[in-house]
């Protein structure tokens, strides 16, 4: 789904979200409340510039609109693969973006992530995955790497990875796998507004992903390992 | 002139004059100087079908521009060439066969092109005369493989055609001498043309044409070993080499192979060697390229002299600052010479140590692998007893005594022997055993219809086999059975090693034919990388006081 359709399904005409290149920013009105929207589109490659731009937008919300909910619209092909970005400290820019989202949460802004198209590796870590919780549309795609590329990098047979991915959500791309592992809290299917409403109502900002991954059976050991460290 | 031309005793000279006359008509040729875009036409004018051509491909320096030009000549005019060159390094070296410009090949080493060479041979695109050692091929340049046309590389030329080769002189003098004095024609590609050369390496009247290449001649840093990649096992074997062989024989003059195992020895001299009190007692004179790994030993005062086959990129300033150690010209830069250094390594060194891919139970070793024809380079000359040697040294005499002690008749005639050490881990990476019952070389000989299996170093020249399990001193073996068990006795857990006669191996150990690390007073757990005088390229740069400037691909800081 493209972002105008997502905005339309969530807010009707009642929004002022603007795309500037790959960057999305604006406000929307949702059931009487104003929501700040920051995000990316066109399968954006997130480089230093785009990371800083998102960070600035978030800081502006924190500075000017205390407590206003933040909706992150995620569509990224991952980090930008350019030497310039590495030179300029893309990791720093992304860390800065993550810190800004973290600040917003600590200052009482509900931070909600929505993967509406695709979310790949590096670009996802400091957007949707830094939200209080991340949600996704059922047709969205989330992955680190496609199976053939993974086979190449790990030097493992593609057929083996394909067959394992049928039973273990760890290996293969797919939104359902991320839900099972707790990385995505819910799918917003059909009634998107209902999804947003439920997300806004959930004010527990603790990171529950490991627990949910264990409950849903997609990530069986992480939560237990964390607990064992606390008890060791 | 006409009487000279008609003489049956000066046909080669007449032929040369005719070629030069054709060349003078080529656009872009002015006296000795040729413009880069005229080179293909020049080659077409100069070279005749069936000519023996030397395209300078050394171990490091490549006449790459002229090689490219030779692939561009019309094969209607130039064909059936017989290429004689020491190294096949560039794709162009084989393109000339693929394109039908050349058809026969005599060479020494083809490591980088070994696979394609085997394929072209299989397709019948070329015929191999023979695979030589360097000295052997250079020798034949003066006997029955004298080049008619030589295409060589130098760093700079002046208007008279004098050449400055810079530090990588390598094969150039041998090639030019053979060509120029037998009515041949010498064409040089140079990086620059200057008014005054820093020094003259090749006199101008031995050179017929000079062309300035658009790019400097390609030189590969082949001898740079990043100390970061030296393993603990290699440190252990280096300790064993120093204590169990170098110290034991008092080795003064030597040549090292190019592997990480010998780099480890170089890096252990100023640490472990120093601790054993060996400074000044071993490793004083070297026939060796300027290995960066030798810098710490040089700086610590171990090394008195080094003569080199070629140079090594990045070592220029360091060499310039250490003329007491290296052979340098009045300009300060290294003068290398492969022919002389090979001769020196063969006759004037007490020891050669190098590695191999495979060794059989006779001690024959080979780097040949199926489907590849790689040749030998210089190893067989370094790794062979110099039967013509007469000057004595302690190491040489001791080795000779050990080999002949108690033998009757002519085999017992006192003489010295060169130490030839093969240093190998029993398993290479991916668990390939280094010891085998039968060398792949036999199968390769059959496959490529060679007259002999391509054995790099013959077992009867090998004096010591050094593995992580121990040192086998083959000099002390009195028959082939002992020899075989001595080799099996250090072959570790390879099938060859496991098939040892344990009782006999124990006896050989009791006699000192086999010595384990513990017999040498070495605890393998002490063999850590912390013993290396440099553990990184950075350390080498520091050890050189900033004089060594490694190529960019080796700089991780």
């Amino acid at each position, binding site marked *: 789904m493209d972002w105008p359709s997502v905005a339309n399904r969530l807010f009707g005409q009642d929004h002022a979200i603007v795309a500037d290149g790959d960057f999305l920013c604006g406000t929307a009105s949702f059931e009487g409340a104003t929501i700040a929207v920051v995000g990316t589109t066109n399968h954006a490659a997130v480089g230093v510039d785009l990371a800083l731009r998102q960070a600035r937008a978030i800081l502006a919300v924190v500075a000017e609109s205390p407590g206003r909910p933040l909706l992150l619209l995620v569509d990224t092909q991952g980090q930008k693969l350019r030497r310039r970005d590495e030179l300029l400290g893309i990791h720093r820019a992304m860390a800065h973006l993550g810190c800004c989202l973290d600040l917003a949460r600590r200052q009482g802004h509900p931070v909600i992530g929505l993967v509406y198209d695709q979310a790949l590796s590096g670009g996802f870590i400091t957007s949707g995955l830094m939200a209080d919780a991340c949600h996704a549309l059922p047709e969205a795609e989330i992955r680190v790497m496609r199976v053939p590329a993974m086979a190449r990098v790990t030097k493992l047979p593609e057929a083996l990875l394909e067959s394992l991915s049928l039973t273990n959500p760890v290996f293969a791309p797919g939104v359902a796998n991320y839900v099972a592992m707790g990385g995505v809290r819910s799918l917003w299917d059909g009634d998107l507004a209902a999804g947003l409403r439920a997300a806004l109502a959930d004010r527990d900002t603790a990171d529950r992903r490991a627990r949910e991954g264990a409950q849903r059976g997609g990530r069986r050991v992480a939560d237990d390992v964390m607990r064992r460290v606390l008890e060791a | 002139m006409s009487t000279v031309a008609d003489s049956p005793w000066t046909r080669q000279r007449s032929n040369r004059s005719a070629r030069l006359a054709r060349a003078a008509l080529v656009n872009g040729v002015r006296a000795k100087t040729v413009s880069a875009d005229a080179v293909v036409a020049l080659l077409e004018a100069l070279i005749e079908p069936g000519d023996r051509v030397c395209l300078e491909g050394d171990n490091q320096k490549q006449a790459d521009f002229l090689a490219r030009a030779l692939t561009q000549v019309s094969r209607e005019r130039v064909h059936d060439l017989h290429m004689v060159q020491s190294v096949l390094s560039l794709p162009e070296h084989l393109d000339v066969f693929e394109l039908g410009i050349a058809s026969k090949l005599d060479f020494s080493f083809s490591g980088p092109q070994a696979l394609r060479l085997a394929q072209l041979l299989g397709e019948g695109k070329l015929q191999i005369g023979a695979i030589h050692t360097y000295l052997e091929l250079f020798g034949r340049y003066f006997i029955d493989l004298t080049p008619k046309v030589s295409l060589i590389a130098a760093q700079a030329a002046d208007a008279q055609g004098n050449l400055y080769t810079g530090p990588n002189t390598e094969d150039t003098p041998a090639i030019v001498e053979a060509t120029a004095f037998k009515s041949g024609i010498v064409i040089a590609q140079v990086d620059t043309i200057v008014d005054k050369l820093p020094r003259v390496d090749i006199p101008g009247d031995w050179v017929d044409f000079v062309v300035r290449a658009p790019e400097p001649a390609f030189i590969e840093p082949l001898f740079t070993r990043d100390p970061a990649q030296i393993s603990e096992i290699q440190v252990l074997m280096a300790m064993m080499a120093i204590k169990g062989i170098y110290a034991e024989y008092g080795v003064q003059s030597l040549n090292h192979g190019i592997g990480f195992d010998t780099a480890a020895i170089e890096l252990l001299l100023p640490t472990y060697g120093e601790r054993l009190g060996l400074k000044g007692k071993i490793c004083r004179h070297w026939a060796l390229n300027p290995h960066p790994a030798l810098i710490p030993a040089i700086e610590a005062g171990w090394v008195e002299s080094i003569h080199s086959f070629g140079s090594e990129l990045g070592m220029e300033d360091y060499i310039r600052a250490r003329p007491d150690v290296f052979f340098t010209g009045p300009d300060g830069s290294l003068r290398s010479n492969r022919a002389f250094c090979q001769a020196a390594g063969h006759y004037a060194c007490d020891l050669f140590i190098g590695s191999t891919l495979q060794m059989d139970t006779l001690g024959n070793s080979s780097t040949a692998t199926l489907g590849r024809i790689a040749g030998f380079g210089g190893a067989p000359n370094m790794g062979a007893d110099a039967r013509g040697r007469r000057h004595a040294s302690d190491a040489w005499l001791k080795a000779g005594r050990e080999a002949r002690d108690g033998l009757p008749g002519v085999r017992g005639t006192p003489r010295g022997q060169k130490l030839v050490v093969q240093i190998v881990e*029993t398993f290479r990476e991916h668990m390939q055993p280094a010891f085998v019952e039968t060398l792949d070389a036999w199968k390769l000989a059959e496959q490529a219809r060679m007259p002999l299996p391509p054995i790099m170093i013959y077992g009867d020249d090998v004096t010591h086999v050094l593995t992580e399990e121990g040192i086998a001193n083959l000099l002390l073996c009195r028959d082939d059975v002992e020899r075989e068990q001595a080799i099996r006795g250090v072959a*570790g857990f390879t099938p060859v090693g496991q098939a040892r006669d344990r009782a006999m191996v124990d006896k050989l150990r009791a006699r000192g034919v086999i010595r384990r690390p513990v017999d040498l007073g070495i605890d393998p*757990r002490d*063999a850590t990388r912390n013993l290396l005088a440099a553990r990184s390229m950075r350390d080498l740069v520091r050890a050189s006081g900033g004089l060594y400037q490694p190529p960019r691909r080796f700089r991780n800081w």
Partner: protein
Amino acid sequence: MAGMETLHFAFDGGRVLAPFAPALVGVVASGNLEVLVEPAVGSGCRVDIDTSARGFGPIWEAVLRDFHQRHGLAGLSVSIHDMGATPAVVSLRLDQAIAAIGGAQP
């Protein structure tokens, strides 16, 4: 090609060590291995191996037999994760592990 091989060996007899804390040496990396040595009940030495290099069981057995002969230790369990280390490296790590638990011969 793919797939790990699991091997188990047991050697009888030898000197039973004084109680010791488990020790780990080495790293699971290409051409390397990690060795975990732990106390075990019984009078033998048990060795369990996970290796990425299949088909080298007989060599492992020879290497471990040699190890057991050299140290002659009992009452311990050795667990190995291997990524294609050569016997030389395996023997070295085993010796380092025994040294780490103070079991090396004086």
